[in-house]
């Protein structure tokens, strides 16, 4: 249980860092860290297949796409950067206050619903995930294939533009 609390806190703190850090390259790396922490949580809960997907795709592929896109944008001057930094700090000054308010509100609402202090439910893995995916979610699979094709065309166009440049 302490491990899970630590991981969930790490997840929220990384997400906050992700939106507050100025350098976009560091932001991409922090986003990869968020995905990695989420995949560890999934692995601990027994969702091994989803954890592997999350780690390889979200932590790997998305970071590569982000960094490729960031590398194509121009570097701004130091004065412009300092000015934008000040404006960003002003805009994000309310975020910690809102987060604390949401945390308190959520605790007030959810605490009466707490039935058991046992951290883990009775682990029951109803059915094999492969059977469920291939037998019960055929329409989803078709949709995924179409979406992957659309994404592949998107990547092709993206890298064609980079080559031209």
């Amino acid at each position: 249980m302490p491990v899970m609390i630590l991981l969930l806190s790490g997840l929220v703190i990384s997400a906050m860092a992700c939106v507050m850090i100025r350098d976009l390259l560091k932001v991409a790396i922090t986003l990869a860290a968020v995905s990695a922490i989420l995949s560890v949580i999934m692995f601990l809960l027994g969702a091994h297949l989803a954890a592997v997907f999350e780690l390889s795709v979200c932590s790997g592929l998305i970071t590569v796409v982000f960094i490729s896109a960031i590398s194509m944008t121009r570097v701004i001057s130091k004065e412009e950067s300092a000015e934008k930094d000040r404006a960003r700090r002003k805009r994000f000054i309310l975020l910690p206050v809102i987060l604390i308010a949401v945390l308190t509100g959520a605790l007030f609402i959810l605490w009466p619903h707490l039935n058991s202090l046992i951290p883990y439910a009775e682990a029951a893995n109803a059915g094999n995930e492969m059977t469920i995916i291939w037998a019960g979610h055929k329409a989803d699979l078709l949709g995924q294939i179409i979406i992957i094709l659309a994404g592949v065309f998107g990547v092709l166009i993206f890298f064609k533009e980079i080559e031209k440049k």
Partner: protein
Amino acid sequence: MTLLFILFIISAALLIVVGIYSLVATRNLMRILLSIEILTKAVSLVIIGAGYETGKMAAAQSYMITIIVIEVMLLVVATGIVFGVYKNTASIDTTKINDLKG
């Protein structure tokens, strides 16, 4: 509800607040994509937690895989669009993209 599920819901709520706040406050198109990504992570967290709570982890995993595929493709296509915008306007600032404004 178990304590673990409550912690999951609270963490997801905090992630959603971070994502929506960033979505509203930022003017950079890449950061907007990043906020959408954080919102997706919150949804993933709730689905996995619910799967564990109800003992239907296999079903939750199948939904997770669908979500991950859609999330990645959305991001890739959106990055292509952002790159197109950058090529045309030399900026990824949303305040400068006002060509269609009446």
